[in-house]
């Protein structure tokens, strides 16, 4: 296309500012009863970026992730996608707002949460066909393509209980991909797996990162975070203690709490 001679009556394209974040969260607070789980968290995620959330259990990382998909509703703070109007959690959150958030993102759960009464294929096309109104044949073709990519093409008619844990989680990832979300959310996707099955799931996730999917990953797999993430956030006590590029955060953490956490994980016997 020529830059000098644009057609006069072509529709004006919405200017896409590549530098603007896909998602901006500001000051997220959340309490369960007396337990303050999030105490003012800011988060930006840019398109194509992989953000890893690490931290001890109870640090708020899973609650933060679940807030992005409206599985938890923060008590206060704001959340905006693509520079659009911010959702203010201090106000009542409508069902339509939750639906809009879920339209943006897709979640991969720790315990996969596949639908046990549906075959692998049915699990994958449920969202596209039932919610997004994609024609069934088209949804099936897309599902088969995605299943083939994670090496599960021949399992399309199996029920989830007939699969190994690693296969189940790969179907969970495909179910999320089939929604073509802007944002993929992973909630400790490998921590319920037998150790020898972790690799097959992480390698799929690495491929997705390489393909440019935008991902937020809660994980205990520090080697994965280090190799794949563009930014790592260390959470403790409901706040972001430290954030930075993995090379910096893992080798020269600035905060003492980060140092202690990394030391405990990397040298559990000390």
């Amino acid at each position, binding site marked *: 296309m020529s830059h000098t001679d644009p057609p006069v009556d072509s529709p004006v394209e919405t200017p896409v500012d590549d530098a603007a974040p896909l998602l901006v969260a500001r000051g997220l607070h959340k309490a369960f009863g007396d337990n303050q789980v999030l105490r003012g968290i800011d988060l930006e995620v840019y398109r194509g970026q992989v953000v890893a959330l690490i931290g001890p259990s109870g640090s708020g990382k899973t609650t933060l992730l679940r807030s992005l998909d409206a*599985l938890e509703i923060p008590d206060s703070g704001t959340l905006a996608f693509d520079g659009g109007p911010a959702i203010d959690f201090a106000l009542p959150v409508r069902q339509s707002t939750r639906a809009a958030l879920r339209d943006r993102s*897709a*979640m991969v*759960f720790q315990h996969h*949460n596949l639908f*046990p*009464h549906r075959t692998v294929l049915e699990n994958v096309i*449920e969202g596209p066909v039932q919610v997004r109104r994609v024609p069934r044949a088209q949804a099936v073709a897309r599902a088969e393509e995605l299943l083939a990519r994670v090496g599960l093409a021949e399992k399309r008619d199996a*029920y989830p*209980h007939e699969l190994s844990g690693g296969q189940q989680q790969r179907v969970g990832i495909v179910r999320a991909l089939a929604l073509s979300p802007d944002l993929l959310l992973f909630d400790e996707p490998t921590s319920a797996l037998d150790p020898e099955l972790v690799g097959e799931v992480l390698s799929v996730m690495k491929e997705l990162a390489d393909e440019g999917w935008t991902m937020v990953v809660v994980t205990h797999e520090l080697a994965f975070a280090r190799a794949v993430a563009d930014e790592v956030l260390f959470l403790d006590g409901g706040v972001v203690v430290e954030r930075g590029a993995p090379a910096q955060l893992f080798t020269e953490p600035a905060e003492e709490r980060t140092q202690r956490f990394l030391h405990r994980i990397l040298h559990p016997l000390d």
Partner: protein
Amino acid sequence: MDWDLIAESFWPIVLGGLRGTLPLAGTSFVIGLAIALGIALMRISGNRLLSGIGRAYISVVRGTPLLVQLFVVFYGLPSIGVVVDPWPSAVVAFSLNVGGYAAEVIRAAILSVPKGQWEAGWTVGMSRSRTLRRIILPQAARVSVPPLSNTFISLVKDTSLASLILVTELFREAQKIAAFSSEFMLLYLEAALVYWLFCTVLATGQDVLEKRLDRYVAH
């Protein structure tokens, strides 16, 4: 043993079961399940008023005898000007009764489905009601088949109470022949046998249904 009487009475009693007992039980069970689902959802809902209404309904149904409920509908309602025929009276009373008992079964079955299944439904974009219909209820159905089969089999036998409000069904047929022939022991044992046969067939149906729904369950 009066074999002739057995031979003569067996078919009318079975026919009373096929034309009276089973349709009455089947109709009441289907309507009762619909009531039960509504009551169960009211109980589960966060709304205190709805939940309270559901709780009160179950309490009344379980806390009063079925025979009394039946008599209130058939003999009681006419005194406030509502006259209902025997058959619809029986359907109303039995449906309301099943609704109360099955509501607790369905509620427990829905609650037995892990919360992660709701969340998975929501994250693929489904609304609460669609998630309930497509994800939760099919799994709850599997869990509730054995206890609901119990409810149904009890109902089949309880419909014998309808003979007291003049509904023509299995037991009333037996009663009529017994009164006519004065062979009470024989006729009532025969009625018992036919009930037992019906229930045995239904229990077999339960097994088939359970196996069908078992496809996706890990063994």
